[in-house]
Each structure stands twice: as structure tokens, then as C-alpha cells.
């Protein structure tokens, strides 16, 4: 029982990290119909900013997170304006080409300026202690990540389902020309959603840095994982992405505990099974 609980809590933490990073990608892919393979690159940029702010400038963890999110969004604005706006509505493969190109550029530039070494984001005292949760000790940081994931899920759900911006966004997604005609400024809606997606990537990059360490190749290393998680969840669905992250996190963690030698087999076999059972992902939108 202790072991099961222990595995479950590890799986939850890992799943939540995936969720925070992937939900932004799920939004861009499902709602804006852009296959943004450079999503991980933005998470990485945020990690670098946070690391610089916390280690070199000596700012606190919260300030570092804030700076990382705003900094990454600021960097993404010209990219959205000059690059992404050209590929809205293009074929997916064209989008893949452009965003992979962008990823290569980011990796090359990061390697040039920041060097190839690992960068860490020092945690505050409160988060770096192991905490006793009764049946085992767990890093406080993991609990923090779980909380962050829950907050993101609730916040996004509220934003999309309960606010006027959410209504505009859904209208734009369903019929962009019609909402334009009805006075919704679709370009602005797209720009804002893009910024939100990037902001979430940034948050995930920073709080997930303990799991996925920050280094220049980050942008490509985890791209497959992100893409798989989003597709399994169903692009554009928040609960879908949440379920996918938790299920895949659980399969991954349990698989690695029970039969570590075949950890990858478990993961990808589960992916194949899920996709065959739910061809649109868990809660994908009908297209």
C-alpha cells in the first residue's frame, strides 16, 4: 500500500509538470490550429531567464518565475507578429517546417550565448526540503508542482468557459470569418491566446526544471513527449490534456517501477492502445 501511494504521488507530480508545459501546446494546436513544435523552445527560454534572474541577479523564486514568464512572452511577441502570423491556416507540414526551423535557431543561439552546460534554478528553502507526508518523504517542490498544475487547470477552465474572452476565443476557433464579421478582433484574440500559451510553457519550463533540466537541447529533447501527450489528450481540450498527463504519467512511473528494463515499451504500448481506442484523443474535438 505504501508503495502504491508512493508511486501514485510521484506519477502525479510528473504528470503535472507535463500538464503545465503541454497545455499551452494543446491550446495552440487545438484552438489556433498551429503545430508549434517550438513550444519546448519557449519553455527553455523561460528556464534560462529564471536561472539568470535567480542565480546571477539573486532574485527570489517568485520574482524569477514572474520575470521568466513576462520575458518569454515579450520575446514571443515579435515572433508571433512576423513569423507565426504567416502560418496561421497553412498546412500542418508547413507549420512543422517553420517551427522546427525556429527551434534549431533557438538551440543554436542559446548554445552560443549561454554555453552548453546545465543551468539550475535555485529553489527557496521552503521548497527544497524533503517533507514527511506520513508514508514517505517527498520533496516539497513536488507538492508545489502539483499545486501549480491544479491551479493552471482551474484557471484555464474558468478563462475559456466563463469569461467573455473565452467566448470570443471559442467563437473565433469555430468560425473565424463569422466572428470577424460580428466584430471580434480575431487577430487580437489569436495574439492573446498565443501569449497565454507561451506564458504557460514558460511557467512549466521553470517549475519543471527539476524534472527536465535546462540546457540548450531541451527544445528538441522533449518535443516528442510533448507532442504525444497533447495528441493522446486530444488537442484543445483542457480536461483531455489533464487526463492524458495523469494517465501517461502513471503508466510511465509504474512501468519504470515494476519493469524498469522495459519502461519505454510500456509507455509507447500504452500510447498505441489509447490512440486505437480513442482515435481523437481522450477528449478531442471532432473535426
Amino acid at each position, binding site marked *: 500500500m505504501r508503495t502504491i501511494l508512493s508511486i501514485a504521488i510521484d506519477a502525479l507530480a510528473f504528470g503535472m509538470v507535463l500538464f503545465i508545459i503541454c497545455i499551452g501546446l494543446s491550446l495552440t494546436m487545438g484552438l489556433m490550429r498551429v503545430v508549434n513544435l517550438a513550444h519546448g523552445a519557449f519553455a527553455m527560454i523561460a528556464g534560462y531567464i529564471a536561472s539568470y534572474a535567480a542565480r546571477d541577479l539573486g532574485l527570489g523564486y517568485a520574482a524569477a518565475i514572474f520575470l521568466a514568464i513576462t520575458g518569454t512572452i515579450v520575446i514571443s511577441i515579435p515572433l508571433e507578429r512576423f513569423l507565426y502570423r504567416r502560418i496561421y491556416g*497553412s*498546412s500542418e507540414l*508547413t507549420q512543422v*517546417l517553420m517551427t522546427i*526551423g525556429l527551434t*534549431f535557431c533557438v538551440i*543554436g543561439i542559446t548554445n552560443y550565448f549561454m554555453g552548453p552546460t546545465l543551468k539550475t534554478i535555485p529553489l527557496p528553502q521552503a521548497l527544497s526540503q524533503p517533507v514527511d507526508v506520513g508514508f514517505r518523504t517527498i520533496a516539497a517542490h513536488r507538492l508545489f508542482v502539483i499545486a501549480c498544475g491544479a491551479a493552471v487547470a482551474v484557471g484555464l477552465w474558468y478563462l475559456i468557459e466563463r469569461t467573455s474572452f473565452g467566448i470570443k476565443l471559442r467563437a473565433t476557433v469555430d468560425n473565424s470569418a463569422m466572428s470577424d464579421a460580428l466584430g471580434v478582433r480575431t487577430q487580437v484574440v489569436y495574439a492573446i491566446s498565443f501569449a497565454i500559451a507561451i506564458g504557460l510553457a514558460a511557467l512549466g519550463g521553470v517549475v519543471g526544471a527539476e524534472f527536465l533540466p535546462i540546457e540548450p537541447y531541451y527544445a528538441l529533447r522533449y518535443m516528442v513527449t510533448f507532442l*504525444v501527450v497533447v495528441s493522446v489528450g486530444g488537442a484543445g481540450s483542457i480536461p483531455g490534456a489533464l487526463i492524458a498527463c495523469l494517465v501517461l504519467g502513471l503508466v510511465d512511473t509504474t512501468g519504470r517501477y515494476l519493469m524498469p528494463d522495459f519502461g519505454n515499451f510500456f509507455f509507447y504500448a500504452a500510447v498505441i492502445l489509447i490512440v486505437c481506442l480513442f482515435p481523437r484523443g481522450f477528449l478531442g474535438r471532432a473535426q
Partner: protein
Amino acid sequence: MHIMAQAGTVSAMSKAKSHHWWRDVAGIALIAAFGAAGYWLFPDNLALLTRIVAVALLVLSIDLVVGYCGVATLGQAALFGAGAYAAGIACVNGVTEPMTLIAIGAVAGAAAGLLMGGIMLRAHGLAQLVLSIAIVQLFHEAANKASAYTGGSDGLAGLMVSPLFGVFEFDLWGRTAYLMGLTLLLLVFIALKFVVASPFGMLCRGIKQDPVRIRAMGSFVFPVLLKMFVISGAVAGAGGALAAISTQVVGLDSVSFELSANALVMLVLGGLGTLYGALIGTVIFMGFEHMVSAINPFHWMTMVGALLIAVVLAAPGGLSSLVERISASRGGKS
């Protein structure tokens, strides 16, 4: 999710078909000329050129499923790797005749294509893409686990290929490997031109554009696409076998997601659904990568990224569409 680009209308197709044959003859002659030019102009880089030829076969095979059938795949290296490992294992076990090895690679690739198509064609769009990723990762994992046969991460080394026709050795200069590869590429290309122009090829294009209508016409979609998958597997497998023969080592990279993704990038770079685009994309991408990485081995990635972005901005349909657009505008003027 429809992976298709803007497809030509039926009338444009039939119009094109009337002067198809001489264009294709000219095109194939041009490829042969380019291949021969490569041999004379870069006699010191034949190993690189052979590598390009092997990858070109992989990219062609992706074009068959992506460009002609509209099936998205990021896992084609599974078929390439199946061919490479089959040829490699056969070679280590005493089958050293190069033509036989290519055939073994093609058969293994076709078998893997049958398996992969059988799984992938159950899904559509994004789910299909993810299935392809999962399959190539499973192949990779299997190749790593079966290290007794594949050498695992250390690679399957010690392939002693006997000379081609008993005369031409696979040596340091790589002339035999290149000329054999080039001939293979030309033969495959010609065969594929026939395949895609055949009624079967047309049916595939039809399915890509509108599977519902094809079904309504009384055709079965699944077996048609599966057949194309098997053909594509044979092409990729032959490419893998060529890589194995010319390198004498088979590494895990030949069944990797990275290779699949790179090959797809090359295809999109060149342009989908023409077969020429596959060759153009491969040559440009790998040639450019080789050039910039020789100039600056440390920071060339930025340049490759910039090239991809530039191509999307300048020629969203791929480089071959650029060529067509230029020739079309010329034709319009005259």
C-alpha cells in the same frame, strides 16, 4: 486534420498527363546528369553523396505515403532501419553479395511497412502521427534490447560486403557504393513514377483528397493505402540496406525518431507529392547542413534553422513549388 496541400484539380491533372511522359524522361535524365556530375565534381565526397542517396530513398518513401496518400508519418525510419538491420544481420551471417543484401533490405522494409501500415491506418490525422512516433520508438527500443543481434547502442559492426559483381570493392573512396546507390535510386525513381501514374497511384491521390467519395465509388480504402505502405517500406528498406552496405556499420540512429523527423523536414522543404521534391529537398538540406557545419562546426544549427524559416516565408509549398511557379510565370509570359 488533413495533411494535404492545395491539390490540383482533376482537369489540371489530365492536362498535365498529356505531356507527362517527356517531362518525366527529361526529369530522369536530369537526375542522372546531376548524379554523374556529383561523381565528377566531388570525387572526394562520395561517402557523403552515398549517404545523401540513401536518405533520398527514405525521403522518397515518405513522399509516397505523405504526398500521395495524405498519411502523416514521423516514424518512417522504422522501415529504413528494418532494411538496414536486416541487411546488416544477413551480412554478418554470411550473405555478402550486395545486390542480395539490397533485396533483403527491401523485403524487410516491406514487411515492416505492412506491420506499420496495418497499425497506423486505423487512425487519422494527429492520432496517426502519434502512432507513427510510438512505432518508431518501439522499433528503436527493440533494436536496443536485442543487442545480441543488433549490437545495441554500440552498433552492428563488421559487415564484410563482397565486391559488386565480384569485381568492384566497397573501399575508402566509395566509388562502387555511390554508383550502385545512384543506379538504385534511378531505378527506384523510374519504378515509382510508373506506380504513381498508374490507376493505383491515382486512386491513392483520390483517397488523399476525399476518402469518403472514393468509398462511395465502391473502392476499399484500407487495402489500397496498405499496398502503398508496403511499396514505401520496400523503398525505405532498400535505402537502409544501401546505408548499411556503404557504412559497414548499422547504428541505432537508423531507427530513430530524429532521422524520421529530419527526413520529413527534407520532404516538406522540397515539396510534397511530386517525387522530384523529395530529391531536391534531400540534396539541399543535407548539402547545406554539410556545408555550414564544415564552416562552423559549433554553431551551424542556427543557419539550418534560418534556411527552413526562409523557405517557409518564400516558398510555402516547398522548393519544387518555387521552381514550378517560376516556370509557370515564364510560360504565362511567352
